[in-house]
């Protein structure tokens, strides 16, 4: 449950930051955009794992 809520919050924040930084120029901004995007994807994966769509339960 904590992972689910956390993934939603962190994923949304990462997505909003990505949207805010979308127009930023420069190498650092470009790398940051790629990394933030992948982190948002990671949050989606955690979200699916926390609702048992992906992964295994011990």
């Amino acid at each position: 449950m904590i992972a689910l809520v956390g993934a939603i919050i962190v994923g949304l924040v990462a997505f909003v930051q990505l949207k805010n930084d979308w127009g930023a120029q420069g190498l650092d901004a470009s790398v940051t955009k790629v990394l933030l995007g992948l982190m948002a994807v990671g949050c989606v994966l955690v979200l699916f794992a926390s609702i048992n769509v992906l992964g295994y339960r011990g």
Partner: protein
Amino acid sequence: MASTTAGHLSGHAAVRARYNDVDPVYREVRELRLFGFVLFLLSDCILFGSLIFAYIYLRLSAPVWPPYLAGHQLQWFDTSFAAFNSVVLFGSGVTMHFALENWKHLHREKFFGWLIATIALGLAFLGGQAHEWAGVLRDGITWSNTTMGSSFYCLTGLHGLHVFIGTVFLAILGLQAKYGVYTGSKYQGLVAGTLYWHFVDVIWVFLFTLFYLW
């Protein structure tokens, strides 16, 4: 000087104006150092990539996965705790992003708050990893008895080492910021620290997928 140039601007435009309001030689050196740091991150990608592909090869070439140990098939790694620990690490990526943004917008106090939160979350993730390792060891999976164990300890251990180095890196950056090494226009170390921290987050996305979801 930076404040006068950026005084009539707001938001990202002011940040960019301050960032560019430096000596041209410094600006050129800064760009080269940033490029060098990105190359370092790419070399680290190759390191993790080679180990990840070794794991994929071992897994695909195994007759059955998880492998057998002493006549019993091993269990899959439990996703529940790893999902929670992943959120802790991804959350630290967000707090580090906020830290850098606050530094760029000259909010020093908020910067230190977010930086400390990032370090705390990084250490919490490492604690979670220690807990995870202890659980896997209790299940009888060691470094040397299965390819599953050796891959898991090697990749998550290397990632954990990166997280540990990252927390030390961020602590040093915090001290440098406190003692005036960085200004509103010169903060390349903080940019490098943020990129490094995002990088360890993203590496975890791949490791989480490989060990807990695949």
